[in-house]
């Protein structure tokens, strides 16, 4: 935070010398040591830290992979296999990177769900939220282009299908598509530019992450009660409290990650990507990586024309809208109360929304026939209904539960009730310290 609350006190002559010239150690100390955080943060708040580490891990493994990878349509597939077979610990690098992308998305989705549950997007954190959505967008671009690099069947056909959607836009569509793939079909120019951008975008993400954390440290974190910080006892210093809690969350997360990397490294991928790209042989089913499935389902849910908008363009617009809508969430939610803990109806709608996303994911993985299409359509309806109807209207009609006067009060009252309870009957998960 800004210098006026700074508790940093350089001890040695050298650190004093630095401090009067470039107070970087002071910035770090104030941001990650003395920075006050609400005392009641739970494990849902550890995903931000996990995400930063995952970004670092993707960059680290990615840069080493790039030393061995060959971005040529003749050699890309073989070069990735060469990394897996002949580069020292190449299999580890590649499996860390490929599964790392999946776990990066897992963490970001949980991070976003936390935001939706505790109302983290509400004033004064609108910009913080918007920067987060920008990161999500960049991540999606990065992962999509990364998946093309190993030049397997799904790489090639995924790229062909997804870039093909852009041709749905009237007038400029074909031009955008040709710009993206550098020609009339996915080929060498596509691979080259995707490689270049796949290397660039993570560094842009890192830049936006810095802005995101800056904005965070201006407004401070929300907390499960959604009540603002009012007094000194509401907060605890980042180190050691949040640091150790983040560390615990992270190490559990990494346990699960390690299980996949070492024991099921291909579970989250598609078998067809172990077949080299072949422009003459379309796979039976073209499916994107699991983290794009809900969006893919919404894209394919639009099977009908809407006036001048044909079904293809409608699908593409729906897919883009499904992410763009996140940008305006701060202004869609009209409720005065932040946290879902005190909003009984919103809480139910929120969990339905989570179920809806999982259902859409399932629809995205299935061939679009029969009941799958209808389910995806209903799922899309609820997805947008949640943001565009429930959020604005519910805030006006819902009767929230009584809010605690302060974080301290909420925490202390919990201690009193739990003291009177038999062991084992712990508080609801969202209230747990």
């Amino acid at each position: 935070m800004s210098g006026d609350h700074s508790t940093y006190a350089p001890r040695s002559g050298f650190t004093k010398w630095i401090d009067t010239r470039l107070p970087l150690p002071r910035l770090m100390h104030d941001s990650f040591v003395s920075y006050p955080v609400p005392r009641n943060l739970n494990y849902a708040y550890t995903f931000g830290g996990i995400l930063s580490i995952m970004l670092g891990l993707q960059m680290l493994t990615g840069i080493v992979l790039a030393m061995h990878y060959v971005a040529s349509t003749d050699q890309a597939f073989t070069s990735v296999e060469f990394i897996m077979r002949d580069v020292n610990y190449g299999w580890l690098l590649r499996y860390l990177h490929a599964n790392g992308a999946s776990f990066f998305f897992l963490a970001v989705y949980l991070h976003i769900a936390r935001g939706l549950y505790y109302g983290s997007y509400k004033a004064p954190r609108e910009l913080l939220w918007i920067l987060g959505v920008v990161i999500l967008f960049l991540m999606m671009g990065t992962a999509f282009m990364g998946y093309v690099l190993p030049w397997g069947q799904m790489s090639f056909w995924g790229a062909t299908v997804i870039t093909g959607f852009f041709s749905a836009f009237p007038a400029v569509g074909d031009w955008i598509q040709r710009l993206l793939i550098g020609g009339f079909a996915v080929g060498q120019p596509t691979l080259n530019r995707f490689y270049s951008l796949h290397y660039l975008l993570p560094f842009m993400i890192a830049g936006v992450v810095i802005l995101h954390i800056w904005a965070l440290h201006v407004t401070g974190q929300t907390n499960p009660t959604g009540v603002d910080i009012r007094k000194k006892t509401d907060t605890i210093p980042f180190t050691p409290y949040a640091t150790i809690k983040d560390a615990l969350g992270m190490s559990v997360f990494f346990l699960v990650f390690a299980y996949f990397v070492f024991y099921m490294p291909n579970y989250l991928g598609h078998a067809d990507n172990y077949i080299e790209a072949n422009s003459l042989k379309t796979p039976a089913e073209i499916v994107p990586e699991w983290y794009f499935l809900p969006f893919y389902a919404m894209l394919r849910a639009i099977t009908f024309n809407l006036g001048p908008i044909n079904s293809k363009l409608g699908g593409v617009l729906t897919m883009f809208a499904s992410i763009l809508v996140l940008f305006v969430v701060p202004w869609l939610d009209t409720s005065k109360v932040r946290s879902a803990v005190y909003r009984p109806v919103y809480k139910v709608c929120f969990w339905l929304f989570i179920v809806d996303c999982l259902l859409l994911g399932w629809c995205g993985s299935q061939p679009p026939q029969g009941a799958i299409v209808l389910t995806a359509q209903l799922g899309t309806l609820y997805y947008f209904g949640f943001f565009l109807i429930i959020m604005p209207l519910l805030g006006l009609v819902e009767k929230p539960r009584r809010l605690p006067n302060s974080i301290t009060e909420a925490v202390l009252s919990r201690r009193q009730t739990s003291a009177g309870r038999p062991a084992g009957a712990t508080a609801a998960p969202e209230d747990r310290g």
Partner: protein
Amino acid sequence: MKKLVAAALAIGLAAPLASVAAGAADIPHYPIKDPPRLSWSFAGPFGTWDKGQLQRGLKVYTEVCSGCHSLNMVAFRNLTDLGYSEDQVKGFAASHQVTDGPNDQGEMFKRQGKPNDYFPAPFANTEAAAYANGGAAPPDFSTIAKARAVESGFPGFVFDIFTMYTTKGPDYVHALLTGYQDPPKGMRVPQGGYYNPYFHSAAFLKMPPPLSDGVVKYDDGTPETVDQYAKDIAAFQMWAAEPHMVERKETGFVVIIFLAIFTVLIYYTKKAIYSRLDDH
């Protein structure tokens, strides 16, 4: 009113279900039969290669499959993984002719294989391979064990995580090789096609049944049956696709133990630190 809504809901739900039932009838689903799940020596967290099996698999490959299928990404030197000595690998490599060159006159020439050479391919290119096999090129074996996975469906795919089921590829290959049979009555199999309900993308494929009992001699007393050959070649293909699998699982074990201990330590540290707060 309530009744109306209920009726509308019922119709709304019944219509798509009916269309699914109808859809299932006219859109065929492949493979017709799911491959049975076998137990493999390399499955599970402590799986290891059965080197005898890999050696038999190599024998099946060299004597039968290598006439049609390439193994482009495996070098002779990799065969030391199968328990062969350097000399044995040298001898095995020398029994193959590889193309080298160009020489100082600009000509390509044939020479004896060396351990650093890769398995030579039976056809000059995919076009030639397809031309010789009725239009379907026999796929390369280097990654095939990872390139075939029959979907488990819901909720099976969730259970697969906990049962650590990662042998879809070998299960598939075994099922395919042992699954040739007469087509059901009334089904027309086109010329050059062979009915096999386990084939992943159609009811028949262009590969004639490659195995029959006794075609490959085993000198370790293992039964010389199609079933056994199929298991051995599938295990060999798994090794070819994932030569570092055992190393991966061993490393993973150490990493997981480390992380587990680390997590416990952090857990107790966290408890100690938070006990300083008055609300704990």
